[in-house]
């Protein structure tokens, strides 16, 4: 069951899921990060980044936890740099495929 929404959350707006982060991430990471397991700093949920809720209306992308709706990641792509704010994520577990 989903917890009651806190004020100011964006539930109800159209969102995509973390699968859409795959391309933007591959601009600066050399491995696919959507299969990485992220831990939400707000509620502790751990799951693949592919399952995050992604909002792209802002200039950039905002990814929220599917469990508690907290912002876990923000990404803005400028002409000369990308800015990645991950204060809502406590840890990332990145699978390394065996050789």
């Amino acid at each position, binding site marked *: 069951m989903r917890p009651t929404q806190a004020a100011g959350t964006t539930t109800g707006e*159209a969102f995509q*899921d973390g*699968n859409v982060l*795959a391309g933007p991430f591959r*601009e600066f990471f050399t491995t696919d990060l*959507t299969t990485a397991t992220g831990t939400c700093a707000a509620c502790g949920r751990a799951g693949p980044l*592919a399952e995050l809720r992604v909002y792209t209306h802002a200039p950039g992308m905002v990814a929220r936890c599917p469990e508690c709706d907290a912002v876990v990641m923000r990404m803005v792509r400028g002409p000369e740099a990308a800015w990645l704010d991950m204060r809502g994520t406590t840890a990332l577990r990145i699978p390394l*495929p065996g050789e």
Partner: protein
Amino acid sequence: MARAAVSGRLTGRLRWQTATVEDVRDETGTARTLVLRAPDWRGHAAGQHVDVRLTAEDGYSTQRSYSLASAPGGDRIELTVQRIGDGEVSPYLVDVLEAGDQLELRGPVGGWFVWDPADPSPVLLMAGGSGVVPLMSMIRTRRNVGSRVLFRLLYSVRTPEERYYARELGPGGAQGGLDITHLYTRSAPEGPRRPPGRLTEDDVAAYGWPAEFAPMCFVCGPTGFVERAAEILVAQGHDPQRIRTERFGPVGG
């Protein structure tokens, strides 16, 4: 083996490349398949997508993600695009683009919503509307590699006219070990079949796999469909770890 090949394609920094439209095929009145030649294409895994970037004369550019519909093979790839009425990108791709035109794409990307042909588990594919596109890549890949993995497709669509890949997923396109069920939500063909309506627990119980078969489940479609399908699967005892979802939203089109 296959796993190593896939992971190899998922490494290294990715660049935009220019693809040329070779052919276009109408799927429905509002959806079209684009056959593209991408000279730098190094193959893909079933279920992956590309980002398409359009740039206007004044330099304004915008991008969207589109799933690959084709199985990997050579430098030809196929995307099927649904026109979103007031969208910025899809009306151009569906109505304007023609053979010989070029567009920029980046891919393949995404490692989560991917079927691994080396995995012997049975597969349940659940599509809502245009969500059938990446699942079609899985079906075509299964056929091309001669896989005997058992597949079931539940394809929920409003009307028979709105089906994608009607010939390939119709009676003439049968593959051994692939069961196809169309579920109509608005109007169904004549006959003593299921009345039109949204996906139900009974549909999934009748046309899916029992949870004890431990299938891999791939669910793709609009958010409402995906969440409903995933809830039903979990309620029927499927392991949430084996349910992979991809939401197709008309976000900006």
